[in-house]
């Protein structure tokens, strides 16, 4: 029993790390540009599928390295051509646009790579269990946790130490002032969008290694990411991280005792958070 619970807690943490990675990207875009990127799941799927396609040529590590950058490049182009036109308009329009994009991504991946689940092979030494007693602790899962942790740390370092990062953070607080101070806001938003999509692409490659690839992989993961952002508090990246991990563990633990409620439980949590603390756990008062 202890092992079962431990297994599910650990599993939940991994899933939560996914949600967090995806939700952090969503949050970045939402905070600076006020756009709810429905197509985020689509970008995640693209990241996974690109890695799958590239794997025969450049291997797992090459795919892991390159695919998120390619995904981010696609994101930059889409931001430049489509999403940029909608900044400052009613959020309704960017929501509808990315909603349409999500349809196109899902159907597009189905068209190119087929509806069947594709296996994304990870190196052998990564996929074997670390010890007999903790059979669930494969090297790949451990590796994922480490990589996600490293990525999140890197993200926070970028945001707090580099010039671009500081501008992004300043922009989320007061974009107008940042603009007046001579920062090119268009480019800033473009970079920020690319950064968010990079995280989605990375999450996609990692998810592909664990779950296999399906066209619906993105739309399955996007809703929990929304919940993670709401629970953590809109506008707060640490909150988003916390929210992602929390709902991951919560649904992992629930799946031990009451498996059919493992999806619904995160929405119950969201309801409770909204009831007690409408701005979310780490959200600032009055920002949204």
């Amino acid at each position, binding site marked *: 029993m202890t092992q079962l619970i431990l297994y599910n807690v650990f599993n939940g943490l991994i899933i939560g790390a996914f949600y967090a990675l995806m939700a952090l990207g969503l949050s970045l875009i939402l905070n600076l540009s006020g756009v709810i990127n429905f197509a985020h799941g689509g970008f995640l799927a693209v990241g996974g599928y690109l890695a799958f396609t590239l794997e025969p040529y450049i291997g797992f590590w090459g795919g892991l390295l390159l695919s998120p950058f390619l995904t981010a490049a696609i994101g930059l182009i889409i931001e430049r051509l489509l999403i940029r036109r909608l900044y400052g*308009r009613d959020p309704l329009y960017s929501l509808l646009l990315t909603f*349409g994009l999500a349809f196109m991504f*899902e159907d597009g991946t189905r068209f190119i790579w087929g509806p069947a689940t594709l296996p994304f092979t990870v190196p052998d030494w990564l996929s074997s269990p670390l010890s007999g007693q903790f059979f669930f602790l494969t090297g790949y899962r451990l590796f994922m946790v480490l990589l996600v942790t490293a990525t999140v740390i890197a993200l926070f370092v970028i945001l707090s130490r580099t010039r671009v990062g500081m501008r992004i953070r300043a922009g989320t607080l007061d974009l107008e002032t940042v603009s007046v101070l001579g920062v090119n806001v268009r480019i800033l938003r473009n970079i920020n969008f690319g950064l968010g999509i990079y995280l989605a692409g990375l999450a996609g490659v990692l998810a592909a290694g664990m779950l296999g690839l399906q066209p619906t992989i993105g739309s399955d993961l996007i809703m929990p990411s929304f919940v993670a952002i709401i629970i953590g508090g809109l506008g707060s990246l640490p909150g988003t991280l916390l929210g992602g991990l929390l709902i991951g563990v919560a649904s992992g633990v629930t799946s031990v005792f009451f498996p*059919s409620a493992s999806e619904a439980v995160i929405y119950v949590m969201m309801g409770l958070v*909204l009831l007690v603390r*409408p701005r979310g756990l780490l959200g600032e008062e009055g920002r949204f």
Partner: protein
Amino acid sequence: MVRLDKPAEESAQSEAPALPVPGFRIDKRAADAIVWLLLLTMPFWLNWIGGYTQLGTRVVILALAAMSLNFLLGYTGVLSFGHAAYFGLGGYGVGLTLKYLVPNTLVGMGVGIVAAIVAAAIIGALIVRLRGIYFAMVTIAFGQVFYFIAYRWNNVTGGDDGLSGWHRLPINLGFTQIDILHNKLAFYYVVLFCFAVSVGIMALLLRSPFGRTLLAIRENERRARFLGIPVDRHIWLSWLISCTFCSLAGTLYALLNNFSDPHDLHWEQSGNFVIMAVLGGMRSFWGPLIGAGIFIVLEDYISSRTENWESFIGLFFVLVVLFFPRGVLGVIRRRTTQ
């Protein structure tokens, strides 16, 4: 959330001040008459131009859903992206009642609507203080709860396959019976009757002091608050009214298909309602009806032509947002007023 960028001149929000009354600029009464005439005679001319009665019924039902969403979206200025939940709750309410409880269509509809009202009242109380993009996100997320319940509660709801094994039953009015099961035309007119009553109530509400207050909140929430209007309560009521009529549409939709579909609860369906409202024109009373008509005919046509219809629908969303954000009636109104 208002930031620099282009001035709001282009956004639909700013075109509003001079049109407090729902409806058309040209001649409102004539337009209303034309709409009702077209709806009343639809089964006859629809077959003639290549449609079929059920397609017309679908248009009317989804138009009701889109118009009820627009009560909130266009007239209260609150962006809900989760209306499919209440639409689907209505559908499952009627399906479950007819299958397990009472073989009576009207009772089933009542159960569906009450279930949706209860859910909307509770969720509405949780989210009513949120605004704008935050509100939209929370409605999206909450919408999924019911989807997962329907999806997971296999032995009752039929899970992913949906709830089948039931069908609509003739409506017994005591003095007469309406056979909506076999007579497609009768069912169309029952649907149209529900549509007319709902739309009539919404139009009356919008003309009442309550409706004017909603418009005031849409135009300037802060000022409305300073005037002593209980803004949160008004938005909650507007949300509740909107969800109620949306669930009525949901019950009719399930009756039309003799099937409760988990997809009706999914956020994709919520997106469809919003695009119908935008496509027809959010600032016009009849806009969502026109949007629903265009959207459904297009979907029907594309999905019969290609397997990749989802891509085309997605592309359609993108094109509408980029090139047609005012919607059909918004553009017409602009032309006629200039």
